[in-house]
């Protein structure tokens, strides 16, 4: 390979690296047990065949923010979006280890889980202030959306002027009420899905292309 070809290739690599836009980091936020990891796993599985982390009915299964890089989402019109998905621990203002013991955990294990969960929530808040470019806010549509944590977190996201999609999850359950979520947050698009069953996730992907593209 002659000198000019090598120099041109090197220069092109440097220019590409310089002008390449950093992939948007999309944080999946919400209260504990809203289905954040289930949705993260679905998105990552649908587009890469991999998974992000384990799920459990015991709250605070996810106690560390987990990032999966370079997820490419596309549609039939040829639009594509490359993002990093950040699955975050459920946000709350209180954690008592005794609640975990009600799920059958031993005291020591429950205390350890509570300690890790507090660190995880603090970490999630830090990510939101520093490192997130867009948010999927997950809510369990069988639960009351008018909670202080939801109102506070959506307010924090709005104040940072981040694009946000609200997901009304668990629409496969009989008492799901996504309209209650629509009335709680009329200023944002709300997409009703089941992360577990995969109902309506195509609409979510279309909206993600629109909002985060």
């Amino acid at each position: 390979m002659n000198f000019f070809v090598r120099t041109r290739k090197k220069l092109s690599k440097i220019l590409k690296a310089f002008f390449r836009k950093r992939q948007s980091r999309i944080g999946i936020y919400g209260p504990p047990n809203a289905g954040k990891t289930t949705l993260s796993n679905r998105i990552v599985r649908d587009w890469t065949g991999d998974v992000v982390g384990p799920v459990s009915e015991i709250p605070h299964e996810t106690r560390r923010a987990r990032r999966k890089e370079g997820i490419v989402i596309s549609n039939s019109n040829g639009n594509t979006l490359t993002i990093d998905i950040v699955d975050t621990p459920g946000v709350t203002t209180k954690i008592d280890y005794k609640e975990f013991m009600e799920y059958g955990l031993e005291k020591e294990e429950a205390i350890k889980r509570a300690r890790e969960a507090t660190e995880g929530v603090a970490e999630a808040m830090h990510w939101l202030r520093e490192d997130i470019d867009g948010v999927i806010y997950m809510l369990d549509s069988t639960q009351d959306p008018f909670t202080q944590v939801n109102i506070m977190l959506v307010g924090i996201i709005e104040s940072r002027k981040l694009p946000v999609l609200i997901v009304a999850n668990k629409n496969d359950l009989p008492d799901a009420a996504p309209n209650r979520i629509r009335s709680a947050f009329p200023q944002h698009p709300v997409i009703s899905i089941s992360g577990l069953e995969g109902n309506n996730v195509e609409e979510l992907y279309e909206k993600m292309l629109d909002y985060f593209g």
Partner: protein
Amino acid sequence: MIQGVQIDLISAERLDRMTVMEKVRLILDDVMEGNIVVLEKGLSPNEQSQLIEITMREITPDGFSGIEMETYSRDNEAKPGFFGRLMGKKDPGARLTVIGPADQMKTIRKDKDFISTWVSSR
């Protein structure tokens, strides 16, 4: 001695003179003693975010288990637009806020314009 709960009402003027960390520390120190704090003017989203983060760092097994907090939603319609801000109108910001220890305070009912909270003594 009369059993009861101490309630501290903090004026908007006093809050305006404080930094973010001063506000967060004042609230948490008070709440960790078992008191209820009422802020005449609530916290900004950034202050709320810091409060959650520092609350998490203060939680201990069989000790402090976090906070219960209630406030009215921010009034988006009352926010001044671009021209409003040019004319010197201010964002009305966060509204009256009640904060207490999670193991002593429980919200019974919350609506857009009504909050009912139950408080127990230690």
